[in-house]
């Protein structure tokens, strides 16, 4: 029987200290990205445009070329990188506020143009780095520092279902929503990331994965409670699944 050795992905920087809060899913998500970069042999041709928020620290963890983008503009910068150097592998790693609030125009237009880019969006229903304010994906009823009595429709309107919106864009080749609440779902998440990366390599268009994630600090929960919340409160609204995949024959 072959032995599988648990190791640190090559695309990970060496000796990097873990800087996320206990129970935060960013660490898992970034590890999955690193594993997929390794498996597809992309480390040496990858360029990432990072975002603003906790997700920006991706470039501290990955041993690949990176440029930071102003808040919301990651996919505009990624478009510039890819158009200038079409032979490179270009992806973004953004939070929900970055991707779907301040950057919604850049995000959807990159998908509409069918840019050969891959985008990962971490959806944790809040602005994490700034201390837990209401964001575009905050659930109805959710208490945040700027929705002290819970999100109501009268003042705040509705949360956005990102993966569904992206899937509606004709230039989108792959759009999926995944969760990191269990081992089985983490495996599925990795397959989705791989798919979103592969469609870029195949030149099929925009590849997208929305990852439902925890923010235990701002949710004021233990890691375990936070993952239960993902499962019990987020997944019924933000349903995991593949919303578009042009590689599958209908």
């Amino acid at each position, binding site marked *: 029987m072959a032995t599988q050795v648990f190791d640190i992905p090559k695309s990970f*920087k060496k000796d990097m200290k873990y800087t996320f809060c206990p129970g935060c899913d960013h660490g898992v998500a970034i590890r999955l990205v690193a594993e997929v970069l390794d498996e597809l042999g992309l*480390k*040496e*041709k*990858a*360029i990432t*445009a990072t975002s603003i928020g906790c997700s920006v620290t991706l*470039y501290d963890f*990955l*041993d*690949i*070329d*990176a*440029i*930071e*983008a*102003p808040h*919301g*503009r990651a996919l*505009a*910068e*990624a*478009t*510039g*990188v*890819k*158009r*200038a*150097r079409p032979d*490179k*592998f270009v992806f973004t790693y953004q939070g929900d506020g970055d991707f779907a609030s301040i950057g919604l*125009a*850049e995000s959807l*237009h990159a998908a509409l*143009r069918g840019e050969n880019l891959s985008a990962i969006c971490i959806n944790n229903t809040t602005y994490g780095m700034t201390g837990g304010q209401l964001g575009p994906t905050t659930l109805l009823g959710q208490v945040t520092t700027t929705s002290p009595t819970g999100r109501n429709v009268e003042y705040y309107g509705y949360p956005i279902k990102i993966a569904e919106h992206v899937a509606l864009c004709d230039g989108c080749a792959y759009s999926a929503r995944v969760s990191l609440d269990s081992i089985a779902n983490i495996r599925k998440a990795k397959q989705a990331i791989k798919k979103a990366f592969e469609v870029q390599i195949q030149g099929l268009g925009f590849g997208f994965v929305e990852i439902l994630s925890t923010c235990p600090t701002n949710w004021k929960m233990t890691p375990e409670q936070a993952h239960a919340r993902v499962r019990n409160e987020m997944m019924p609204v933000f349903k995991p699944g593949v919303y578009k995949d042009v590689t599958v024959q209908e």
Partner: protein
Amino acid sequence: MTECLVKNNKKVLIKGNYAIAQAAIKAGCECYFGYPITPQSEIGEYMSGKMQELHRAYVSAESELAAINMVVGACSTGAKAMTSSSSCAVALMQEALSYATSDELPVVLVSVMRAGPGLGNIYPSQGDYNQATVGGGNGDYKLIVLSPSTVQECIDLTYKTFYLAHKYRNPAVLLADGLLGQMMEPVEFTDYPYPAIDHSDWALTGAKGRPARKIRSYAPLEGPQCEHVKNLFNKYKLLEENEVMYEEFDVEDADIVVTCFGSLARNVKSAIKTCRAKGLKVGFFRPITLFPFPNRRLAEIAGMTKKILVTEVNMGQMLRDVKLAVNGKVPVSFYGKPVGAWPNVDDIVEAIEKELN
């Protein structure tokens, strides 16, 4: 058709906006990203066709925010990339320009001024001197700013804008105006005269056989951030020492020197010739680089003349830089209007005579 040949076949008659676009092509611009706005839309229109014909990158961006950030992305790979826009839309680009100065990226922006503030209107104006030289982005930074006064200079200075942006790895602005963008003049297209700049030691190309590179505008701690900004200002000092450009004549014996920038220089030059014909001792001084500003030369001129008159088609924006350079040595006065038809030659002559009486 964007141009027609003039007599000797060397010169072509061409509109300023098309001249800028063609110069950018000849300068080797690899990527154009833009969003339409009058009075510079011809640049994007021309580039949309030409860049595709040449198999270079072109994107009709969804907004000016996206366009300038696409330029930033392309420049991070060392590519020659540009956008063009005007006034209220250049306002939307200030955030990215601030980032690009800190990231030290060779962004090229063509800014063809219209009238403001706000939406203003599409009459020509020079109201964005401050926007270009002082900037609307956050933090301590400078943009390289070049100011053409003729369509020929639109070409020559487009070349220079690309060169300086890449040589100094700093965003550079060609600050034209609606008058120049829309006027036709006979010009000659020389070849791009500057050497290629090697970006292989910093550009993002994928971490193959070398450590990964991170282009980021900030250092999380006080000390390194101080160091970073100081380094930027050392670069600006180099620009001030080496790249100042200006045009002058008749300043040595002048009782008054008239200064202006951009296309207003055309009328001011005629006015000075008229004054000289009348026996009035009037000199001319025009900064071509608005940053680096020709402080040293203006200070020297202040030591030679009795008075300086600043003329602009705005309410006195370059005026402040002139006053700083003159540093109280001689009186500095202002003549201008905020928007619309440039003051004509007679008006300027009258303004000069008033100052001399």
